[in-house]
């Protein structure tokens, strides 16, 4: 019997994979629902004996089965988008059934956990430190050092918390891990628990990911015996972007408003319910099983450039022809990613801007496309890698409007605890509106009062408004408690710097 392998990832489903799967079943094929290869422009992608067909619709079934389909892309593993990648975290993508323990064990699953449990926690932490793995959530803090802090912290209980509140636009790697390879995340958490001495773990998932929640719940139930005595539980968010910030996330699990906490104390010392807590991103924890397998740490350390070690699952999104998941060693340039791998824009128009790192990431001009993918190189260019999401815009994009959107988004999602973010973002929207409308600020009744000696009596000029916007961004950047208010200036200032004509 012919076996048709079709992804059951949310993106494949959103593009009609269920109907295609039903059509293959009706044609007498055996249908296997597997994880997604990450070639999103080809979803729903059908794989029969290693050969791919996509994007498939139910009407293609007869042609695919008779071998006359013009949607054949040849052997999937040899496709340049796949063969040029270096997949460690996504090694199983497209190849296994997400909830099959059999498939997971047959592809090296649990090897990392078994080896980790034969080691002392100290040796385990040492090995993770040596691999050079840095937090994939955005901040890039060395994972081994965080674990060491939690391990050494004094506490009767300790926790491992997985941050799966992937709210950044342009990112979907966490979702793909949770839906495509949930056991890998569970294994990574069990290893982390052994390293830091935790008995319980939580995975905090955003409510916008119903499929990921269902897969994780099922995977945890299936793997409960294997990871025992470690216990993991999924906690679902309630639509607050700011809960992706680690301290806000901890408050949310505790059942409080998702407000950011001041640091110190670090969550590693006083985190969930006041106990030492290792908070790691999905991609960080999913990278762990590979690192802990035999020789994994030294391989990881040998990849990448400078202090950015290993591989990064990069997400090509937005107006790009070949969007999807591209995992590769650090050091690749944006030009390679967008022109060579991504094939330029989906609309066929020239690229105007690229936002790297989600809503808080800088807009990067095509002149800077030589920038290597590396934490420090991006920081030096006033940009950030964040969670590795890349959103491409064509020349129809209005960058002044995008800058305004960044402020508006910050205003909508601010937790309200610190003033620069809560009020600054609203003032930012007003200020950008005023700059763009070219109508000078009206002096209101209060500023006209004779008591207001220091208030300017003349309306502010456009130059003064621009200066004020810069000052406001400076205040937000250095005065906000967390990255939401602190990084919103990146998209605003980068848009203003590179595309001043869009603010006219």
């Amino acid at each position, binding site marked *: 019997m012919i076996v048709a392998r079709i992804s059951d990832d949310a993106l494949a489903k959103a593009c009609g994979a269920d109907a295609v799967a039903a059509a293959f079943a009706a044609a007498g094929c055996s249908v296997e629902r597997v994880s997604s290869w990450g070639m999103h422009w080809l979803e729903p992608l059908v794989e029969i004996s290693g050969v791919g067909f996509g994007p498939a619709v139910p009407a293609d079934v007869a042609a695919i089965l008779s071998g006359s389909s013009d949607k054949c892309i040849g052997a999937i593993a040899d496709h340049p988008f796949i063969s040029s990648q270096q997949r460690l975290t996504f090694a199983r993508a497209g190849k296994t059934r997400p909830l099959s323990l059999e498939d997971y064990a047959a592809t090296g699953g649990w090897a990392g956990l078994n080896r980790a449990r034969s080691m002392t926690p100290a040796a385990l932490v040492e090995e993770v430190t040596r691999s050079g793995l840095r937090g994939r959530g955005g901040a890039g803090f060395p994972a081994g050092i965080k674990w060491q802090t939690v391990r050494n912290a004094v506490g009767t209980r300790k926790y491992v918390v997985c941050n799966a509140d992937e709210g950044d*636009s342009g990112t979907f790697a966490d979702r793909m891990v949770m839906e495509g390879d949930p056991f890998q995340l569970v294994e990574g958490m069990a290893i982390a628990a052994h390293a830091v001495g935790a008995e319980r773990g939580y995975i905090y998932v955003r409510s916008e990911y119903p499929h990921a929640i269902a897969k994780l719940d099922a995977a945890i139930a299936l793997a409960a015996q294997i990871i025992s005595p470690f216990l993991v539980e999924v906690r679902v968010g309630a639509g607050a972007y700011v809960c992706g910030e680690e301290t806000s996330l901890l408050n949310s699990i505790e059942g409080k408003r998702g407000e950011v906490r001041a640091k110190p104390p670090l969550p590693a010392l006083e985190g969930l319910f006041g106990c030492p807590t290792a908070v790691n991103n999905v991609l960080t924890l999913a990278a762990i099983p590979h690192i802990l397998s035999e020789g994994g740490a030294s391989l990881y350390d040998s990849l990448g450039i400078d202090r950015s070690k290993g591989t990064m699952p990069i997400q090509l999104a937005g107006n790009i022809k070949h969007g999807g998941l591209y995992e590769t060693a650090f050091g690749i340039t944006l030009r390679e990613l967008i022109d060579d791998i991504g094939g330029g824009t989906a609309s066929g128009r020239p690229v105007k801007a690229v936002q790297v790192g989600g*809503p808080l990431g800088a807009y990067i001009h095509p002149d800077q496309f030589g920038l290597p993918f590396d934490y420090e190189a991006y920081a030096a260019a006033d940009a950030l890698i964040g969670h590795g999401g890349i959103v491409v815009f064509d020349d129809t994009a209005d960058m002044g409007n995008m800058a305004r959107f960044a402020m508006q988004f910050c205003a909508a999602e601010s937790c309200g605890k610190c003033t620069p973010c809560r009020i600054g973002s609203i003032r930012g929207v007003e200020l950008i509106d005023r700059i763009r409308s070219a109508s000078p600020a009206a002096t209101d009744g209060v500023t006209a009062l004779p008591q207001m000696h220091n208030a300017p009596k003349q309306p502010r000029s456009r130059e003064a408004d621009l200066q004020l916007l810069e000052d406001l961004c400076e205040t937000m950047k250095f005065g906000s408690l967390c990255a939401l208010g602190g990084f919103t200036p990146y998209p605003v200032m980068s848009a203003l710097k590179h595309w001043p004509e869009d603010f006219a």
Partner: protein
Amino acid sequence: MSDTGRLDDIIAAHAGRDGPLLPILIDVQHAFGCVDAGSEARIAHALNLSRAEVHGVVSFYHDFTAQSDPRPVVELCRAEACQSRGVEALVEAAEAAAGSRVKIKTVYCLGLCSAGPAARVGDNVHARLDQAALVDLVQSA
């Protein structure tokens, strides 16, 4: 069973957990379509919290509403990646198709950023929407 009985069942189902408030509120919102003042008071009493504390949490999160809305909901992503793929041009047609019968709710990111514009109805997600597909989706919601 009365609403109070259902509410108490939800509270009892989560009461033994660490940090039970959010799971309770999610289930209450799902069961009743809102978390109203009466529910807040009852949850507060059961968890030994003040009503203000519970209300503070309810009003913080976008997913909780004080009043139920009987209309079907289409969640339309209007974050950067969907904007770059032209979602803003579809909003007007979607609103027109929705009229007063369907609620169009703006969300920021459904994680389908390489295949936007994207929308969600219940637990079903839809990608690569053009105007006709989105209008269809709204009309069939």
